[in-house]
């Protein structure tokens, strides 16, 4: 045993100096959620395009993350980990997320009145936006997830591949395929 070192008591003023080594800050689950929760919720909104489903997806993601938190290494990438859980939850819950519950409850319908006109005044722009939105929700789930992450959450293909558990090339193909489908469906109306 090493020689008895001077014992320095911790007092109100010396709490900081009591630390012999500079401590590493380990984020708590609440820290991680406070930091990334809003982004994950936005991801859920983009995926489901309606708030009740987004709320469900977010809650379920948070609960799964909470349960798995204690098995996560201290230095894990929490953002990527939460995206992965949210994506898996979304993909495994096809029943609830494969269709919009109702077109009127979609986020676009909530935000943009259907009577708005485009510059030519001929086309109901709000209706077109809703149709495009519904078309996105009807894309195959993996394609939809990749498309949403690239287009709306500004993620690179490495991050998307990690969230989807696929290759970067497959993630890129999914995004391009989604765009090609959108063009084929709506190209003659825009």
């Amino acid at each position, binding site marked *: 045993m090493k020689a008895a*070192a001077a014992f320095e008591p*911790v*007092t109100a003023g010396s709490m900081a100096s*009591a630390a012999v080594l500079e*401590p590493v800050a380990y984020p708590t689950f609440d820290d991680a959620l406070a930091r990334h*929760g809003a982004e994950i919720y936005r991801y859920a909104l983009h995926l489901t395009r309606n708030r009740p489903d987004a709320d469900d997806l977010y*809650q379920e993601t948070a609960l799964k993350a909470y349960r798995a938190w204690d098995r996560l290494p201290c230095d894990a990438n929490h953002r990527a980990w939460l995206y992965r859980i949210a994506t898996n939850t979304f993909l495994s819950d096809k029943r609830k997320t494969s269709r919009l519950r109702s077109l009127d409850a979609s*986020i676009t319908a909530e935000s943009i009145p259907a009577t708005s006109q485009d510059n030519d005044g001929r086309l109901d722009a709000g209706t077109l936006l809703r149709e495009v939105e519904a078309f996105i929700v009807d894309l195959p789930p993996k394609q939809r997830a990749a498309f949403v992450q690239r287009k709306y959450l500004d993620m690179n293909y490495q991050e998307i591949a990690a969230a989807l558990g696929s290759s970067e090339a497959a993630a890129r193909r999914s995004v*391009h395929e989604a765009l090609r489908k*959108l063009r084929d469906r709506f190209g003659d109306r825009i």
Partner: protein
Amino acid sequence: MNDLVNAAPGRRPPLLEVIAERRDTDPCDVACEAMPAHVAGDLTSRDETWLHEHTRVCTYCANELRRYDKLDALLSTIGGTCDQAWSPPPLALPRRAHVWYTRVDSPIGELILAATAEGLREVDFAKESSDEAFVARMRQVGADVSHAARSDDAEPAVRQHLERAARELEEYFGGRRSRFDIPLDWGPMPPFQRAVLEATAAVPFGHVDTYAGIARRIGKPKATRAVGNALGRNPIPVIVPCHRVIRSDATLGGYTGGLGIKQHLLRHEGVTIS
């Protein structure tokens, strides 16, 4: 074209360089690959330049580019609807224990002290335990961990417990204290282990009891070995004096921090064990 999009700068195949010169075709295969990449933001600025040069000589691609750009604008409008300040719904998650810890020096080596608002939760022989190992172990029992010096959000009660634990330990090692008064937080501990530790906490300074003696005291006289195991996982050594429990043949038995520390503590209390 996929290869063109993916290719690293400098290793660009010659095909893209001829795109700009390629004449009007309908349909043009450039559009099929390049337009989605354009909208997805996958093209480098050089690719974008080439693509735009190409659309000047290819009517089909010029039309496609216009359509894709309009589509892009629609998609941006749809995406913008999610940028409102919609905050995530409140979560109903089980409450986690939150443990704050600090390190202090002592005659038996550096110690990690950890407390919750309830009381002192852990005393760790830091020599045996890195910060990371300590945090990982706390997490396994479902507690969040913060360093007391690093976080301002430690509740006053937690700081008081940590300060008091350090003060009482200092007095103990200085020979001015023979019993600890600090509140303890047993955490999610099996009832048997808790009974063992509470019986152990009742063994006074300068006295010893045996594993069999503790087993008798908690009404489980046959559980001598289980008592030894429970003491081996004592989360609050020194303060819960598991060093005062020895074998019936008057030998030391075991000690998680090392037998040297057990010997030192007993000698400090005036107990001599052969």
